[in-house]
């Protein structure tokens, strides 16, 4: 599997990006490569909602000419939405190439609490594993501790670990084997 492109949109904290690089390698056994030089697409901004369209961001990522075929994870401070929902923590192209996560609502201060960089980094990693998992074809997992579980709220997100459960890991191995890729098995357990 080619390295995952990590694409900062704006200026996400370096601590978060570092956590993502280390954590994604542990979760999927795949390295990351920083991809720079991408500006927020203005058409993604919805003035009426004061939020950014996750679908429009994914489309813009797909339009990037460089490194075709490379999986990409966008990391933004923007508050994301999809039309039917008031917000999303992230969005991915299921079985596709691109995903994006938003740090906006992962920050404790968004909810009137004290800032906590470590908590933010862990939440970002959990959400990133979830969205990257979707690009690898994983669906929501019924195991609430698995990062692939659906997490509509922060309580659910904080309850999850950052490494796919045994069942999701087995599915990943199966998909990679079927696709003829080397089966780089994620290490057991992982960080929580």
């Amino acid at each position: 599997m080619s390295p995952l492109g990590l694409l900062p949109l704006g200026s996400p904290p370096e601590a978060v990006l570092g956590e993502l690089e280390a954590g994604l390698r542990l979760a999927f056994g795949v390295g990351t490569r920083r991809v720079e030089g991408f500006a927020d697409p203005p058409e993604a901004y919805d003035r009426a909602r004061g939020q950014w369209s996750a679908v429009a961001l994914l489309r813009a990522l797909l339009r990037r000419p460089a490194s075709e075929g490379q999986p990409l994870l966008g990391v933004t401070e923007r508050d994301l939405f999809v039309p039917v929902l008031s917000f999303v923590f992230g969005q991915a192209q299921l079985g596709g190439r691109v995903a994006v996560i938003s740090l906006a609502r992962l920050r404790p201060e968004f909810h009137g609490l004290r800032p906590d960089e470590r908590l933010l980094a862990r939440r970002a990693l959990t959400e990133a594993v979830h969205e990257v998992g979707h690009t690898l074809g994983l669906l929501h997992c019924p195991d609430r501790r698995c990062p692939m579980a659906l997490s509509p709220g922060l309580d659910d997100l904080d309850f999850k670990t950052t490494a796919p459960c045994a069942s999701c890991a087995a599915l990943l191995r199966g998909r990679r084997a079927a696709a003829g890729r080397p089966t780089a098995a994620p290490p057991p357990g992982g960080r929580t």
Partner: protein
Amino acid sequence: MNARWHILVVDDEETMTESLSAWLREDGYSVDCAGSGAEAIERARQRDYAIYFVDLKMPGGLDGIETMMEIRKLRPEASIIVITAYATVDTAITAMKEGAQEYIVKPCHPQEISLLVGRIIRVKKLQRENAILRRKLDRHYHLHDLVSRNPRMLEVFRLVRDVAHQRSTVLIQGESGTGKELIARAIHYSGERAAAPFVAVSCAALAETLLESELFGHEKGAFTGAVAQRKGKFEQADGGTIFLDEIGDISAKLQLDLLRVLQERRFFRVGGNAEIAVDVRVIAATHQDPLLAVREGRFRDDLYYRLNVINIHLPPLRERREDVPLLAQEFLERLGHEMGRDVAEISDEAMRLLVDHSWPGNVRELENALERAILSCRTRTLSAEDLAFLQPPTAAPSAAPDLPPGLTLQDLERQYIAATLERSGGNIKAAAAALGIDRSTLYEKIRRYEIPR
């Protein structure tokens, strides 16, 4: 296992359908989209969706309420969730009055949609489980319970539909495990006799005298042990259907008795003087070649022609491999539920193993194999490892089995059956499953080889 639940998202805004369908697909649902009311109705005509998300405001053509009303005409059981950007009491009342199950105002919190869909699916799962349990309880099998994509089987289904409303005798032929009794039940429960009894008799399971009493009943004192009068299966099936399985195994005397019943619809109880008239449809089945038995003089030709008014031949599973994925999924769902195991899908590799296997025990063997695989499965996906017992041995056995010279194939079969019975502690069901044959065939072989039990 959400993939079996189909959801239709109806909205004229592409970004709306795209994002909602993506959200639902990540939850494992199978999602289609429609960009207008007319398209939604056309899709509803083609597929039975579990849930419809319908946007209330769709300019041009049918609006959400009109679309919903048309869908409900086509699919009264469908759950419809109306979506609107405008939260007014009037629209909510109108939508609910016209049959919307739920009503959401966009944008809504992600939790709202998850809870809503989860709640509806939970109810639908319960309804489905209820239907499975009821079917199991009643052992009623209708034509729509049978699944196949094979042209020969589809022809069988058509024949079942055609003959269900007639009284003609039916002879079903097919190897063990091909589902002869299922077809017999489908004929019975698809016709006018459905409300009357369906009585199945395994002719191979009983000795001649016992079978005679079983079929025709007996009077008190007719033989030692006949302490009371007893109605036979023909009387029990009056007004309905009697299914005579393994008809090729009945004795010459019983063949004659049966011929008389078929001709005159009358018989005597064992030891009785009064003639009893019955209105019973007869469906017979055999895994043997009845014409060969006729030619060899083991089966009466007049009885054969009486039974073989309508002939249904069920192909073995190896000749309809396209049905294996369909049946496997069906069994996975039912057995998973019965065994309380959350095994949701079958991996591609495992499915290839299933499709490539020769299935000498046919559909019954497939069902047994899946039951065994589900038991050993530790994840939600049945893998090739869980089906390892199906794979042919990778290395040749180190030496030929130590067999005494002069053994016939029948001697060998007798010994093997006796050994299997001993291993199963005399449990017929377990022994039959281990041997890959059905119970009536095992009974017949036990009787033929005079194996002590």
